[in-house]
């Protein structure tokens, strides 16, 4: 019995794989939140510091990370809504369908958001 069990895949169905991914993305987002908050500290240090940070982070080199982060956020969000509904006892019977729908919606939103992100990052400079 160990923490590795949260992320075990062998013999498991999509149901608990989704649990694993939700937990994983939750942790990723948590770490990102800490980073996000600390880097906003730069706002207090003045325009120069802030803008140089933005210049490095909002750049094509960071684009792949941004896009992965988007995936994590979108998956966690969409799957989270599914989980909220199910945990509140809504749509239990349709839980399989909701599961597939969550992945589908995640994929669609991710593509749209990635395009927007690409335009944003590449379009700025």
């Amino acid at each position: 019995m160990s923490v590795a069990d949260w992320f075990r895949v062998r013999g498991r169905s999509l149901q608990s794989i989704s649990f694993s991914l939700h937990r994983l993305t939750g942790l990723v987002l948590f770490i990102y939140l800490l980073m996000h908050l600390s880097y906003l500290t730069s706002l207090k240090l003045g325009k120069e510091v802030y803008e140089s940070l933005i210049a490095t982070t909002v750049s094509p080199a960071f684009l792949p990370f941004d896009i992965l982060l988007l995936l994590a956020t979108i998956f966690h969000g969409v799957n989270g809504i599914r989980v909220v509904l199910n945990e509140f006892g809504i749509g239990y019977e349709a839980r399989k369908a909701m599961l597939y729908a969550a992945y589908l919606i995640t994929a669609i939103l991710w593509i749209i958001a990635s395009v927007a992100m690409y335009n944003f990052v590449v379009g700025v400079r």
Partner: protein
Amino acid sequence: MDELEGMHTRRVLEPAAWILQMVSGLLLAALIAIHLYVTHFSTHDALAYENVVERFRDAGFKAIYTLLLLAVTFHAFNGVRAIVLDTDFGAKNRRAVNWLLMLLFVAAFAYGILLMSSV
């Protein structure tokens, strides 16, 4: 089995935390969408220093950001609390874990507010 002792708790922390986790999750879905739209997808210079500072001074944005900050810090730290409590380590140190993460949540939230109001 002593593992099961102390299970007849009357505390309201767990149920309240669970409901708030769900509600904050739903809120976040909306607020993060707005946040992302505003900062990345609306205009190209949304992240310029002036624009950021301006938004922080706008009452409407301020309200939304405060709510987002509240929701996200609670959700994140409570989420981590749940993860730690899912382990035997967490079970043994339940009180410490609860206090620590609640404290961190408050600290993070206060820090965010401070940041917003001082810019």
